[in-house]
């Protein structure tokens, strides 16, 4: 052959197209996206945990009935819907061509079973279930949800993009009790799971689902056509972010879901890489106080903590100084969402050690230490503990920082016992903005005492308002209710918002087209040579 290598490749490609059609181009040059996600994939049940890696996994192999587009508007995905005139009955009709990865068709019965499993575990799902009268399959492709009163919750819930999204599974799988993790990897989504290549905690491989029929609309957010433009997506675990950045720079990987902000200078200005930030994938820091144990069973102490804490220090420690990657704001439901408020902004955003000391004095603080749990093994959480401890100390508290890995925080925070018996006083974490901006589902503001999230705040009025929000069908009422919840949450110190920071993807310049969505998804993404 006298042709240079690349030209001969082109020729082969052209011949292949000519003889076999475009489909076999991929066989000639297989494209693979190598990605490092935020956490290793170890379990395979997306309904059992709000771990974001499971949500991301779900979006690869499963599909959803509805989806939100870039603007946040609910759109049909697997199914379209109609609402009865009384606003109580929603009828969903599955579109044509939907098939499970084993080749069997998706039926209405599958969807009903999937919703029934999901609405036990998800906070929004639970609210929907409580308002629902019946759910039944009408025929192979149609099913209905009937509610006790007119509500918009069905669309909100079934298009829920994060936390635990309602993924559709086969009926036999969906009938597994929620206490038993499923092991099936059969979905109907745009990628198929390569079970033979799966190494828990190390590697997960997703192959293009050749039989997937995408919608005809263009991709937008989670909605629109999920057209897969690569052959394979490989998720590799790299526990050391430095290693991941090195691998990125050597071209061994194409995508890092969460790059530590301090490492970004390594790739900034390099044309081979781009930094990609989706507003919807940002996170909110939050500090949680334990209402069931002294001293934070007393409002005065909670107020003192709120005054002592400020947002900028924590954000700086997480994402660096002077970067536009972080925002301070007082809003409980997100700085830029529809429910943002400035209520008590100064108290929340800036540290006020003197006010804190005053409040402690009024409360008669005896100097007994409060116990702060610090998670040390997650990059975004590790800096929170030291900063909180410092500010509380400046504010007159005596603080014991107990460092542990996230697994131990998760275990210990469920204890309502006194500190000496394995309990706790304070911990902090982050939530992604789509979860934060959902007043019904957001765990940070639920305040039903024992039924609330860890810390167990008990403010009955908030629970009433959350229920009212779920029933409200117009946006104006919802905004009004959300702001009331915000005020109550701050006044009672149900949670302390600690500012928001962006999640930055480092992406190879070869990749383009990733949808601006609530989670990193790999349909619509192309990889050039």
């Amino acid at each position: 052959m006298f042709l240079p290598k690349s030209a001969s490749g082109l020729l082969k490609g052209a011949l292949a197209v000519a003889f076999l059609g475009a489909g076999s181009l991929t066989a000639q040059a297989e494209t693979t996206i190598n990605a490092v996600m935020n956490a290793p994939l170890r379990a395979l049940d997306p309904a059992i945990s709000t771990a974001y890696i499971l949500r991301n996994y779900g979006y690869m192999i499963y599909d959803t009935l509805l989806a939100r587009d870039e603007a946040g508007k609910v759109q049909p995905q697997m199914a379209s819907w109609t609402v009865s005139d009384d606003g109580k009955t929603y009828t969903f009709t599955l579109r044509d061509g939907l098939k499970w990865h084993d080749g069997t068709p998706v039926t209405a019965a599958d969807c009903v079973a999937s919703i029934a499993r999901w609405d036990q575990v998800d906070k929004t799902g639970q609210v929907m279930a409580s308002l629902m009268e019946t759910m039944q399959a009408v025929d192979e492709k149609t099913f209905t949800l009937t509610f006790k009163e007119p509500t918009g919750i069905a669309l909100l819930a079934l298009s829920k993009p994060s936390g635990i999204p309602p993924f559709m599974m086969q009926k036999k799988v969906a009938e597994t009790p929620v206490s038993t993790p499923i092991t099936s990897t059969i979905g109907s989504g745009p990628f198929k799971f390569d079970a033979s290549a799966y190494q828990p905690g190390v590697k997960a491989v997703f192959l293009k689902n050749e039989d997937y029929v995408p919608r005809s609309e263009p991709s937008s957010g989670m909605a629109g056509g999920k057209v897969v433009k690569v052959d394979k997506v490989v998720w590799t675990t790299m526990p050391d972010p430095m290693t991941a950045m090195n691998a990125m720079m050597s071209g061994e990987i194409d995508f890092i879901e969460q790059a530590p902000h301090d490492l970004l200078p390594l790739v900034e200005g390099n044309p081979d890489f781009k930094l990609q930030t989706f507003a919807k994938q940002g996170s909110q820091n939050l500090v949680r106080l334990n209402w069931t144990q002294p001293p934070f069973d007393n409002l005065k102490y909670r107020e003192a903590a709120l005054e002592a804490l400020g947002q900028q220090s924590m954000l700086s420690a997480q994402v660096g100084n002077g970067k536009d990657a972080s925002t301070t704001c007082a809003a409980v439901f997100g700085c830029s969402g529809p429910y943002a408020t400035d209520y008590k902004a100064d108290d929340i955003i800036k540290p006020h050690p003197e006010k804190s000391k005053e409040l402690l004095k009024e409360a008669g603080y005896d100097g007994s230490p409060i116990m702060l749990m610090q998670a040390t093994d997650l990059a975004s959480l590790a800096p929170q503990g030291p900063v909180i401890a410092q500010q509380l100390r400046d504010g007159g508290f005596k603080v014991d920082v107990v460092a542990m890995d996230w697994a131990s925080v998760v275990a210990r925070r469920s204890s309502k016992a006194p500190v000496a018996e394995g309990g706790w006083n304070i911990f902090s974490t982050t939530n992604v903005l789509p979860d934060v901006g959902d007043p019904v589902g957001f765990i940070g503001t639920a305040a039903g005492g024992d039924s609330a999230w860890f810390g167990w705040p008990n403010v009955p009025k908030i629970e009433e308002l959350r229920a009212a929000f779920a029933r409200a069908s117009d946006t104006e009422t919802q905004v009004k209710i959300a702001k009331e919840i915000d005020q109550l949450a701050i006044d009672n110190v149900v949670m302390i918002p600690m500012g928001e920071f962006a999640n930055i993807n480092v992406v190879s310049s070869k990749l383009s087209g990733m949808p601006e969505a609530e989670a990193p998804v790999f349909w619509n993404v192309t990889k050039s040579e």
Partner: protein
Amino acid sequence: MSSDTPAPEPQSQTLSLPEMEGGGASGLRAVLGGILSSWSARISAAVLLIIVLMSVFAPLVTSHDPIQLDPAIRLQPPSAAHLLGTDSYGRDMFARIVYGSRISLLVGAGTVIVALLFGMIIGVLTGYFRWVDAVLMRVMDGLMAIPGVLLAIALVAISGGTLVTVLVAIAVPEIPRVARMVRGVIMGVRNEPYVEAASVLGTGMWPMVWRHMLPNTVAPLIVQGTYIFAAAIMTESILSFLGAGIPPEIPSWGNMMADGRLYFLLKPELIFFPGVMVSLTVLSVNMLGDVLRDRLDPRMAKRL
């Protein structure tokens, strides 16, 4: 097969036991005096002395608080205000290095004390009583077979990182080796004529152990102790590096390296400064250990 004779000890573990004459302690002072005649020993001793002084007089050496953080001045290069710059929380690196020496020395010394104490008790018991030997040495064999770092990681990560857990986790895997050595010495001298004579004269167990047996263990224990000291400082840095070490709030060199891990390509000094300190300390202790070993017991040179 005769079942009444115990299986022979694994050769690897009884190899070249030191056989010291009685009264090892009396010659010790002379030996220690002679040690400083070597240059490497002098330098090592000087380095260690500086580190010890630094840890004792830390508040005089630096006016900064090693824990006080200020993210507004994070990751600054060395300056007059911050001699070695600041870390990712805006803490003073120099102050953390200085106070970090306290932790390293504490971990080293604590591990040595725990390991030697328990090793000696177990060694004496097993060397003296056959029936204890059968039981305890099986436990020691089991413990010795578990890779120390893995055991320590599991212990610390699961029961929570406090200074005490880390100390115990580092010390426990060292105990079997000390116990074996002490046991070997005791068994070795048990049949020596002067011990047998004392036994015939009716000397009780504890005076016997105290007067005739333990002195023989002093020299090898000192040598072993220095190596355990060095290994403990190293293991602490490894555990902290893996995120299973001393609470991050405590300024230890290992924690500093764990914090600096992320910035290796951007600011290698964050990992480099504490890395040098660990290496320097471990190096000095090892050097001293080598000299001690050569002086105290040339035959032990075989062991390590």
